[in-house]
């Protein structure tokens, strides 16, 4: 059985997984420069060792209510569609190993613009549901 590994994160009440090979690194508490007039999901830009990275709020992408403070958030650095983005999540969990065969389709009842970003749902043991986020499914477009 070949399993797949996902980095998992809390985004509000949700648990989101991103394939490990897509995560370049995870940083905490960087200096974010806000960008006025930007789309709501864009929190700003940050300097990652000389590279300019767009900071995108996972909560806003997934339609979760805004957090009270940015304290304790993590920045997941992902390369997608020719640019580097930093996806802001609430808490970083462990790497989850799942059997691709256990994937369940994303229910139609989820908002279309959110559903588009997700490719599958996995039930982790008896625990929570993990939503698989596909960075290439228009993560940067979600911000325009």
């Amino acid at each position, binding site marked *: 059985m070949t399993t797949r590994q996902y980095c998992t994160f809390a985004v509000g009440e949700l648990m989101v997984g991103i394939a490990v090979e897509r995560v370049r690194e995870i940083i905490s508490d960087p200096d974010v420069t806000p960008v006025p*007039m930007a789309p709501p999901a864009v929190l700003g830009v940050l300097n990652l060792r000389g*590279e300019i990275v767009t900071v995108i709020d996972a909560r806003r992408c997934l339609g979760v209510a805004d957090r009270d403070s940015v304290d304790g958030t993590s920045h997941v650095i992902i390369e997608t569609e020719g*640019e580097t983005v930093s996806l802001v999540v609430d808490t970083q969990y462990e790497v989850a190993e799942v059997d691709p065969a256990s994937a369940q389709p994303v229910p139609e009842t989820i908002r279309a613009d959110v559903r588009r970003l997700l490719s599958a749902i996995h039930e982790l043991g008896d625990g929570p549901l993990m939503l698989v986020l596909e960075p290439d499914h228009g993560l*940067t477009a979600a911000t*325009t």
Partner: protein
Amino acid sequence: MTEDDEIRQVFLEESREGLDQLELDLVELESRPRDPELLGQIYRSVHSIKGTCGFLGYDHLGALTHRGEDVLDALRSGRLEFDPGIATSLLRLVDGIRVSLDTIERTDEDGEEADPKILAALDEHLLRCAPEPDAADAADATASVVSPLQGGSGQALDIRSGLHESSIRVDVDVLDSLMDLVGELVLVRGKVGELAAEEEGGELVACYRQLRRVSGELLESVMRARLQPVGTVTRKFPRIARDLAASMDKQIKVELDGEDIGVDRAVNEALADALVHLVRNIVDHGIEPPSERLAEGKNPDGRLRIAASHEGGRVHVEVSDDGRGIDPQRVASRAVSSGLLTRDAADALDAAGCLELIFLPGLSTKASVTSVSGRGVGMDAVRANLERVGGGIEVESEIGRGTVFRIDVPLTLAIIPCVVAHCAGARYCIPQASVREVVQLGPDELRDAVSEIGSARLYRLRGGLVPLLDMAEQFGTPRATPSPDGITAVIVDYEGKRFGIVVDAVGDPVEAVVKPLTRSIRSIRVFSGVTIMSDGQAALIVDLDGLADAAGVRTATPPPVAPQEVLPSPELASMLLATGTGGRSLAVAMSSVWRLERVHRDRLQRGGGIDVIDYEDALLPLFRLDDDIAAESPPAVGEQHVDVIVCDSSVGKVGLVVQSIQDVVSGQPVPSPVPGQSGMARLELDGRVADLLDVEALVAVAELTR
């Protein structure tokens, strides 16, 4: 690398640099064939290559340059009369030398004997020479340079001294990774700075200062290493254009400007591709044969100008010619016959719209296919290539007068000096090239020099009214501290428009390293790039064009108009829009506006049949801008104040009473007369219709009806 290898490398690089200059000089020589200084310079270029060849033992190349030198010597002494054929032969000589240099680089030998055709052509010119006045002298001069024995030690010294000013090739990947490393260094520096701040006066503080200085200089050096003058591209065109023109029996003179402007290598490459296409097209299609030009009353030499300039983080390259221009109708017909456009769609286009069609894929307007520019491939590729690097191209043309192509490319990764503006706790970089001045306005100046009427906030600056826009308000960010004590405004001039940006404070200027914007931020259009500040934090670079658009300070494009309606000299005009006391929209040219005043009704007096107020020690006559401009009805009851536009006129200052001031806009006014009313013309501006007021006509009418 052995010493010999080094010497050879220096010889190759210096010779190549010399050849670039030589090529330009030879083209220049065609217009100034008798200029002794120019001839001397050319002679010396060839001579120094020849001299080193002798020293390094490259006999074939030496013989080739020797022959060129003979021809140049004959020209210099006046024994040979210059003609275009000689220029061609000498340019071929340059090509021959290049080939030899390439061979030397590859094989360390100067290869076969030089192209006999080049030598034969030079010999032919020499045969026409008048006899040499003193053959012995000339021979002596040559010998003294060629002989390695005589000139040996001197030559060696020359070559070694060249090492100090010559350049080396560096792989761009190396430069890129240097950049990233320096960026990282700057970040670490920031952290060290924080540590140093905690440990007051310690050794760490001294180390940090040193680190800051060294890393700052390192950053700057790495940036500069990436820049290349635009001239490395544009300087190739006098030769290219000349050869192309000669192959078509045309004559052309190329003028260059702004060659020293530094741009990133990648940008330069994109420019080179675009310019090659453009210049080919211009020489092939644009420039007429000399006979046709003479018949048109033009100089038989076609003129091609490539001018680069730098504005607000963009590089503009204007390629203009004085050729036959592009006929919009022909372009449109061609597009229709090529099936790119329907007849109806073509008919709906104005002249500028038709010209835009040249950028469509698969369009060529030249009836015959030529070897030079081919057919149907070109302008669409030019545009696509420029857009790939975030640039663009526009065209403007007048039949019979010529064509102007305006290329605009970003200075990706270039350095722009910027003023740092603080606004609501964030920092924004404003390109210094556009900043005219920074003004601090205290409460008194705010009261006296800033008129805040309606949505328009105008600052009177030395005889002109400057619209102010509030950066915090524009960006929707809360202002950190309300400013009862006054404001700071950065006054900018951008593409002919002056406006002021109100910010919280202005900090020290920085050399901002421009990094391209990510996609989602580019779409906001108010920022042109991002830079990394000395503390490692990112800061946005303001795009003044986009900011002015977003704030409505200026109109993006003049309203589309049919060609016959265009004013004789369409100029952008700045207009003050106001609502008249009768509710009518009015426009007054900003050039005639002196000030905006809000006057208490009690100050109004009646005198000589019209209202006046005491104003700057004189009586200011007031006109109410109602439907009937000479109306004597008092201002609407209940209003405590009236808004007055104070204008200059031939009879002194006059005041125009309006209901409210709307806005200041600039654009291309399209006037049409308002039936039955002098002093008025209807005007469309920024999509709004207003009646343009001619202050002089108004005063004249008022005098008559008094």
